[in-house]
């Protein structure tokens, strides 16, 4: 599902970052561990096609990202890739429901109300659909952020430090949630973190 080979990246006037080759098959989960500053997020952005690599290749679902134009990359990403950020990003002028509808609107499997309803019920957000995003609690925002990363049933879900702001109890819950939802979508899951607590939850691990 996801494969990288000889992936490198260089920021201006800095040393070249070299990333390990990884290979992840459909439905498989992978934890990428490493201390702060080794380029974990850069690795994730390269795999999600948000940064063009200095050298090497990324292929997702058999598609070479290097071969896609900027517009093709946007469309491909919107459809097949789910991203969950360390910091939550929402469209603040829209309410919860409209944020979810927006996420579904520019992909091929347009506007699936059934999927939306079920997901909101499982994440306990059904009561808050008409609220402004800013009025949600931290935990609710976290769950909405996860929902936005996978409501469109992506082939691969990338999660960047999803647990860094959470206490032990919530950390375990969020990881369980991610694993469960990825399972329901049949998606591969790749988590990037420096959080040691996550290690025990995943067997498949790579150190950066």
């Amino acid at each position, binding site marked *: 599902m996801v494969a990288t080979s000889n992936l490198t990246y260089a920021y201006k006037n800095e040393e070249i970052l070299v990333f390990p080759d990884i290979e992840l098959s459909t439905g498989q989960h992978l934890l990428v561990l490493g201390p702060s500053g080794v380029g974990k997020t850069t690795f994730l952005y390269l795999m999600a096609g948000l940064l063009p690599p200095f050298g090497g290749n990324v292929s997702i679902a058999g598609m070479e990202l290097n071969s896609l134009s900027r517009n093709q990359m*946007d*469309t491909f990403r919107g459809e097949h890739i789910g991203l969950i950020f360390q910091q939550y*990003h929402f469209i603040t002028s829209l309410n919860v429901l409209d944020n979810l509808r*927006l996420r579904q609107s*520019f992909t091929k499997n347009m506007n699936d109300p059934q999927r939306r309803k079920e997901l909101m019920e499982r994440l306990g957000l059904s009561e808050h659909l008409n609220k402004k995003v800013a009025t949600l609690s931290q935990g609710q925002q976290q769950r909405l952020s996860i929902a936005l990363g996978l409501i469109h049933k992506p082939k691969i879900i990338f999660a960047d430090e999803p647990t860094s702001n959470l206490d032990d109890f919530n950390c375990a819950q969020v990881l369980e949630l991610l694993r469960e939802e990825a399972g329901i979508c049949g998606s591969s899951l790749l988590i990037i973190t420096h959080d040691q607590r996550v290690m025990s939850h995943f067997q498949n691990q790579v150190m950066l």
Partner: protein
Amino acid sequence: MNLAYLAYKNMISKPLNLLMSLLLLLLSVSLVTFVLQLSQQLGGQLSRNIAPFDMVVGAKGSPLQLVLSSILHLDAPTGNIKLKDIAQLQKHPFVQHAIPVSYGDNYKSFRILGTGHDYLTLYNAQLSEGILNKESFEAVAGSIVAQRLGLQVGDNFISSHGLADSGGNVHDEHPFVLKGILKPTGSVVDQLLITNLESIWEAHDHDDARHQEENLLENGNHKKGAKVGEELHREKEITSLLVKFKSPLGMIQLPRFINENTTMQAALPGFEVQRLMGLLGSGVQTINGIALAILLVSALSIFISLLKTIRERKQELALLRIYGLRTGQLFRLVLLEGLFLALIGFVLGWLLGRLAIWAVSQYTQVSYGYGLRVNGPEIFEFFLLGLILLLAAIATLLASRSIYNLNVAKTLSNA
């Protein structure tokens, strides 16, 4: 969900920004449309009213005043002329129509005009009910007079002296009978009560003996009554003669002849109205200039407001790229927001302009007897809308250049 919905939501999420841009746009649009409507309708009414006549002959004085008083019924007359002095003119080979008019009385501020039926014919005035006046002290009413005073065919009314309703000095020996009501013509006829010339003469013949002294004290606005009664019986007078030429030669020869060789004055309504509109036109241009300046400022305000919004929303725009929107769609999103703003501003401004026309009309109707119509959109206004949309589009595209260089990865990690 489509881009239009998101653009709309984004637009209303910052009400203060929205208000500022809207107000400027609204101000300029309402100013332009209002002034244009005003000058167009004024010019239209003036030219409609003077259309039947090429020349006015009256007592010496200001030619503009003669035209305003005798044709448009806006001013006081310059004086009277003797019926015998115009007899020759009426038979002149260059003259097609020469219609004597006489006035000086009013009923509840609406002027009573003594003239012949050919006056009505030239304004294409037709009866909507009743019959035309035949005998003395029979009258027909213009549509606005009838409507405003609630007059019915068969009603009696008593004229009073002067051109405005002063309350006193009524010709109560001679009540008029309303014989007919005219259809709306869109011309000055709508504002008049029309009778024959004899009614005006007779009303004043009888009154003269009684009012001689007080009339002498009045100023020259109404000279008919100021004449000694005896003289008036012998020499009939009219206020002015409205002339339509048969041949353009008349226009060249007759006015000059009258002005140089008689005690009367000839004025050309077309020329006088053009002079008046020329004065008005420079005012209109000045206001249009100001409105254009405000329009440019409003485009600048939309530009600044969008520029600010795009900076503030950089992360959301990056997020939309994650959601599968292409750069072109982000442009379209911001463009739609700018165009919405322009469209709403235009529509509200247009409505405000028409509201102002309506309000001014209420005033002019009472003060001058001329109302204004609240018209639907005009072709020029569609051009104005196009111009505003174009300006908004340019402002938006200039403001959204940064979208093209948006670095999604960097923008999202700098949260």
